[in-house]
């Protein structure tokens, strides 16, 4: 059997990849995908912990996370479309109307 720590480390690596993608990618859609990757890393953590603790709470939580991620995706894509209509660009560096 694969030990718990392997799953947790894999999830942590996925989470860090998500964070890195969020910080270094310039395309809005890619940034959005990075957030989804982070959420899925969390899901993996929940499921593996839930299995090893023999408690269902974690798996139920995963359902909630998935539902919320779906809702977030709809709203996020709608927002991205309005931004594209206004600016005709999907590069975050050009979304800079407001500055200090």
């Amino acid at each position, binding site marked *: 059997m694969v030990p718990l720590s392997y799953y*947790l480390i894999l999830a942590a690596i996925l*989470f860090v990849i*998500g964070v890195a993608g*969020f910080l270094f990618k310039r395309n*809005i859609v890619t*940034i*959005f995908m990075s*957030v989804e990757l*982070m*959420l899925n*890393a*969390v899901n993996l*953590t*929940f499921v593996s*912990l*839930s299995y090893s*603790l*023999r*408690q269902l*709470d*974690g798996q*139920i*939580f995963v359902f*909630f*996370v998935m539902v*919320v991620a779906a*809702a*977030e995706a709809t*709203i*996020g894509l*709608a*927002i*991205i479309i*309005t*931004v594209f*209509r*206004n*600016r005709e660009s999907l590069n975050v560096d050009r*979304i800079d*109307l*407001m500055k*200090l």
Partner: protein
Amino acid sequence: MQTSDLIRILPEIILAVAGIVVMLLGAFQKQNAGRMHPAIALLGLLGAAGAIAYQYPWRSLDPAFGGMLELDAFSAFFHILFFLVAALVVLSSSEYVAQERLASGEYHALLLFATMGMGLMASSNDLIMIFIGLEISSLASYILVGFRRGVATSSESSLKYFLLGSFATAFLLYGIALMFGATGATNLTEIHLALQAEQNTVTAMASPQLTPLVGPVPTALVGLSIALLFVGFAFKVSAVPFQIWTPDVYQGAPTPVTAFLSTGSKAAAFAVFLRVFMVALEGSAQDWVWLLWVSGLLSMVLGNLAALLQTNIKRMLAYSSIAHAGYILVAFTAHSEEGVAAVMFYLAAYALMNIGAFAVVSHFGNRGERYVEMEHYAGLGYRAPLLAASMTVFLLSLIGIPLTGGFFGKFYIFRAALHADLVWLTVLGVLNSAIAAYYYLRVIVFMYMHPAAEQIPVERVRPAMGFVLIFSMAATFLLGIFPQAVLDFASQAAALLLENLGNGVL
């Protein structure tokens, strides 16, 4: 599920139903038949407030849904605050919605949904419910921020809020997952018991209520989880170093929505922040107090210094809202009953004065929010004396001048901090509120002492907006002259919140 469970979430049910009705009306009615929507929204808020009042006294010994929701005095206080904020925002946005031709049905429905999410946040006693409530209110506010679809700044704000918000939510979720791994629970009371058991094993052995643990609680995991939870909550309350989004979002959002975010959302975030840290993580306070100390100080300093440089009023108020989050964190750092009560009082006082200030900004901004720069306010004191006078009251209250709610808010915060021996933080906090006086007074100076450069049209104040201004002014003075009633309520709620905790353990 029992009837008592349903009664516990009756306020949320009423809000959701009212929101759906408003949304459907908006979808099936003609374009300009938007008069009904604010009325239904207000009715829903009134009904929800009635459902809260019906459950008085709020000492629920039987939490609803297996311990997921807890309608105690703490959550009742916040519920009433949210309903008040939402009602004032509905009233003050009637001008704005008509002026900007916004879809009135959707606008009011989203406001109601966001309020519902905040209500859930305030009463949830389980990390799952906290997450759901947080997301309900956040998703609604992402849309509200970008509601002026054709305006580039508005959709830009919405995008920034959405991306950074979901980024912070992911951190919060990871924190919840690790906390679940460390303690085997998502319920706040159970987490508290598990962490407490780790600290004094002897007492825990004797306690029959202790949840069965899988093994000893891994301290490193708990520490990491606390840090991640802190990131998530600090983002929501816009505390440094997670405040980057605040000025951009507050500037680009429709002004009534900015008022809503800076008061309602902030209060809701502080409600969960308090409940999670003071109930679940109270036992490991020494691990997180210094985080709050540093973040509170930085928020005050950075917020105030950046606000000094602003020329746009909305952006200035956004930076000032970061500074106010800092003041609230000072009371939070005290992590005492008095501190919790001070946070609650300050949030109430801040909500009333800030909504008033944004109402003036919204009214004066005129079509397309054209007049939101500091120099546009020049000479306002002579052309619209009443409007300028109410703005002056709100700004003086934000400074914390005696006789206004802001004064007692700051007073209680610094008193709680001093009683917790946070002398340095108190001194720096008081110095900071002196810096803050400069940029608030600058607006007053512009209004009364600068000649108007151009003739800026000032529309007549409509009755709904007039009511909001008078109400918030009266409430600001009331909190500044007779603060005792609200403070007593807050103190009782804080005592109850922390007292139940003691019973559960010893």
